[in-house]
Every structure is written in structure tokens, then in C-alpha cells.
């Protein structure tokens, strides 16, 4: 599959997305927009589209990087404790500094997400039994332990409702003034691209890296920083997008292989297309209301995830 085709699909879907919504705007109106239509486009539709694309890029690439660095196909921010740690960080920010600005919340959540992911990688180092399915299970358990701490303190402080809004991804609240934090992910994704080759080599192991004169630890740490920061930015603006970081890289790997330099752009674009499709479905299925994206991605994603698991079993047997 050519990257070019994927980009065309992405553009077509993007245009479609702009013209779906309660307020009726058709492409024909484009040159004779009323003021209200203009405002809907600028305040709601464009920000929504941009945040969908950036979140799709971000979550699929962080998944890819995590899989490469942990050398396990089923590790992602969702199954590696990153998302859960980030939410704990946000809760701490809400509790300790109730008047914290978005940036302050982001920094605290980032610190937690990084620490959580790092801890998970340390646990991985110690586990001798490196089964493909076992490792993400450990990650899920680890994430749930953190998550239960979050729930406990959120419950005690009447912040459950706040927390659950970070839990369920949704683009319905995205509008200009509330999504700009996502732009932080752009330089990080560029950095990920520049490091693509190094991440691939890091995925081949510590000794392999050392033979080629590469500082394995440094590259892994840079990767984890990118993963943690991008995940936090996405959670803070749209909430958790489960499975995305898991299934998209796995799908792309099937036809592109594991060379990051080659599959990174594909992964990003396929991720954005997937989120766009899920968002459009969520917006149309009970029109004029909408289903939160976390739910659509969760349903479609888990089916694909199951398929990937089965396929792997068949392949191994």
C-alpha cells in the first residue's frame, strides 16, 4: 500500500468530517457561508478535525515506539501503565493544586506518566518469562493497581466525575481554546521520526546496540519521554483512546515490517484514518447526538485486537 493512497483517504475523510454535525453546512455553502456557519467551522469543526488527526498520529506512534522499545507487540500506553499513571498525575494536580493551569497539570501528569512507564520497563527487565501475552497482562495489572489508587483518592475527594472524563475519550468538547495543547505533540512526533532508526536498533537489544556504538539507555529514555508526553497531552485534551496504540502499529507491521523509518509515517496516517472513521461513525449512529469516541474505538478496537491475537496463535502454532 502506498503512503500516497492513505493520504488521499485521510483528506477525503477529513473533508467529510468537516461537514458532519447538527448545524447543517454543505460543501456548496463554502463560498457563501453565513456568519454562524463560519463560526461553527472555525470554533468547532476545524479544531475537532485537527485534534482527531493529531491524537490519531500521536497515540499510534507512541504505541509503535513502546512496542519497539519493550520488544513486545502487545505493549502500548494502555497496556503499559502510561495512561493510568498520567490520570493519577492529573488527579494529584487537581487535589494538591486546585487552581493549576493546563500547563501545570500537563507537567505533573507527564512526570507521573514518565515515572509509571519507566517503572513498567524496569519490571520488564526483571521478568524472566517474556511471553508475548504475559507481559501486557503484567502491564494491565500494573495499570489497574495505579488506577485503583486514583479511584480511591478521587472518591475521597469527590473528584470521580472529573476523573471519568479523562477516562472516556471524546471529541465533543473540543473547540478552539481547549485543544491547542495537542500542538505540543507535533515537535515530539518530528523527534520520533528523526530517532526512528535508533528506536529500531534499540528494539534489537542492548548488545546489538552496543556493537553498533549506540547508547541504548539514552535512546530508550528519549523514547519513553516522547511516549509519556504525547500520551499526557492526548489524555488532557480528548481523554483516553484505548487500543489505538496497540492495534494500529500491529496492523501496519503486518504489511510494512518493523523498520521504524519505513513504517512510522504509515502508522501515523493509518492511526488518524482510524480515529476519523470511528469519530464519524460515533457522530452519525445516533444523530443528532453522538457516542463518545472512546466507546467506538473500544468496540471496534477490541474486535481487531482479538483478531490479531487469534492470528498470532495460528501463526505460532
Amino acid at each position, binding site marked *: 500500500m502506498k503512503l500516497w493512497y492513505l493520504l488521499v483517504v485521510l483528506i477525503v475523510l477529513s473533508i467529510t468530517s468537516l461537514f458532519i454535525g447538527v448545524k447543517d453546512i454543505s460543501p456548496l455553502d463554502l463560498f457563501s457561508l453565513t456568519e454562524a456557519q463560519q463560526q461553527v467551522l472555525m470554533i468547532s469543526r476545524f479544531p475537532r478535525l485537527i485534534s482527531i488527526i493529531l491524537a490519531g498520529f500521536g497515540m499510534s506512534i507512541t504505541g509503535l515506539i513502546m512496542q519497539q522499545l519493550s520488544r513486545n507487540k502487545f505493549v502500548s500506553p494502555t497496556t503499559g501503565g502510561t495512561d493510568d499513571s498520567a490520570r493519577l498525575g492529573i488527579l494529584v494536580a487537581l487535589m494538591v493544586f486546585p487552581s493549576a493551569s493546563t500547563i501545570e497539570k500537563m507537567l505533573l501528569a507527564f512526570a507521573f506518566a514518565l515515572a509509571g512507564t519507566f517503572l513498567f520497563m524496569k519490571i520488564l527487565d526483571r521478568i524472566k518469562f517474556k511471553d508475548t501475552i504475559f507481559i501486557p497482562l503484567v502491564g494491565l495489572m500494573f495499570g489497574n493497581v495505579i488506577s485503583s489508587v486514583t479511584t480511591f483518592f478521587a472518591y475521597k475527594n469527590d473528584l470521580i466525575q472529573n476523573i471519568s472524563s479523562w477516562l472516556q475519550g471524546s471529541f465533543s468538547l473540543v473547540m478552539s481554546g481547549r485543544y491547542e495543547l495537542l500542538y505540543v505533540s507535533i515537535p515530539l512526533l518530528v523527534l520520533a521520526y528523526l530517532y526512528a*532508526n535508533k528506536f529500531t536498533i534499540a528494539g*534489537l537489544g542492548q548488545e546489538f546496540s552496543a556493537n*553498533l*556504538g*549506540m547508547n541504548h539507555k539514552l535512546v530508550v529514555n528519549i523514547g519513553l519521554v516522547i511516549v509519556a508526553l504525547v500520551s499526557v497531552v492526548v489524555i488532557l485534551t480528548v481523554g483516553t483512546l484505548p487500543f489505538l496504540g496497540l492495534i494500529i502499529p500491529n496492523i501496519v*507491521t503486518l504489511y510494512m515490517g*518493523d523498520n521504524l523509518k519505513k513504517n512510522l509515517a504509515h502508522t501515523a496516517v493509518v492511526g488518524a484514518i482510524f480515529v476519523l472513521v470511528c469519530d464519524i461513525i460515533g457522530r452519525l449512529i445516533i444523530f443528532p447526538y453522538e457516542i463518545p469516541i472512546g466507546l467506538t474505538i473500544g468496540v471496534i478496537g477490541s474486535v481487531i485486537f482479538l483478531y490479531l491475537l487469534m492470528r498470532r496463535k495460528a501463526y505460532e502454532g
Partner: protein
Amino acid sequence: MIEVRNVSKAYGGKPVIEEVSVGIKKGKITSFIGPNGAGKSTLLSMISRLLTKDSGQVLIEGKELSDWKSKDLAKKISILKQSNHINLRLTVRELVSFGRFPYSQGKLTKEDWEQVDEAIAYMDLVDLQGKYLDELSGGQNQRAFIAMVIAQNTEYILLDEPLNNLDMKHSVQIMKVLRRLVEELGKTVILVIHDINFASCYSDYIVALKNGKIVKEGSTETIIDSAILKEIYDMDIPIEIINGNRIGIYFS
């Protein structure tokens, strides 16, 4: 020239390598042999800086290992470990291109790609270069890794049990390639090997280790000798000369 001086290594208080000193001659094949647990792989890992040594010195071209920049060292010395089981989907060509990493840091120039092509041709992998590593047999996989090391173009090539899990045909093929690397390209090859007969047929020098110490070292003819092998392996191994090679009959 690689010079190992009084190198020691212990794991959890238990010595694995004790005060080992050995010189590796340039442009030759040197084999490390010895029973399991002798410390052969540990020694090889320390020479290649994959493993830190507890004490002693390893001099590469007269310069202590720790004084080398890792990046420069990667252009001087390369190592292939025994467990090359990779669960990443990479093509042969992609793997070989990583051998140029020390020179280009991932941005391969035209000359880098020429070296990659040469290495692929040298290992007879042209037809397989677009294949994924997980589609190849054990022997083809090993050849792909050796091609990567050739692309890395280092003076010293270290291999940890390169014949592991290979059948006879592929083992012979790999050993012949190593011989060619020495004769044609002037490389220095150091390898850990279990089969004394492969060591006997293809290496110039043999270093025999036992219990973390060097028991004997010398030219192949002097080491492949019943009395010396008895000392190393505690086994009576008669030596026969077949086609000019000294072959140990150790099967019964």
C-alpha cells in the same frame, strides 16, 4: 592487535574469568575452545566491551577499551552474539544496512549503500535481500548477520558460537566465509566454538580455557593433541590426520 592483560570477572562473588592474559594476532583466525562454563563467551564479551570487566586491561591497538569512544570502537571491532533470535520483521537488506550505523548514524550515504550491496553480494544473499528475517532458515539468518558485520567493515570480527543450531552444510559454509574474510579482506576473526574439529580445520590459533583460566594457547597443530585435549576436556581423544587436518575422534 588485541591484548588482554590480567582480566578478571566475577558474578555474585563467583569468579568466571581469573587473571586472563592473551594476545590476539592480526589477520588470523583465533578460536576459543573449552568445556561449558569455562568463561569463553564471558571473555569474548569483555573484549568487545559488551560486558564490563572487574579488573585488568583490554588494549585494542594499544589503547585501553574504556578510553575508546563507543562510536569509534564500533568501526574497529564488531561482535555477533549466539542468540540472534529476532522477533522483529526486518528484511535482510534492512538488517545489513544497520551495519553502517557507526559511520552514518542512520542516514546512509551512497557509499554506505554500496558497502551494504557488497556485503549482501559477498554473503550470496542477493536473491534473499528483500525477504524478512523470520522467513529465513537458521543458516540464511546467520549469513544475514554476518553480512551485517561485513557491512560494519571492522578490522576485528568477534563471533560467539556462530555454528550454534546450524547443520553440517551450513556450518562448513560459515567457516569457509570466515576463512575468506581473513584471506581476502585481511580481517582478524576471533570466535568461540565448541567443535574442536571445526576449530582444527579452520583456525590459525587456539586458546583453550577451563574454569576461567587459560590452560593452553598456541598454533592449531600444537593444541589439537591428545595429551593437551585430555587436560582441557578430561577425555581421551585420539587424533587422526585426515586430508592434512588433525581430527579428534571423540565420539566413543
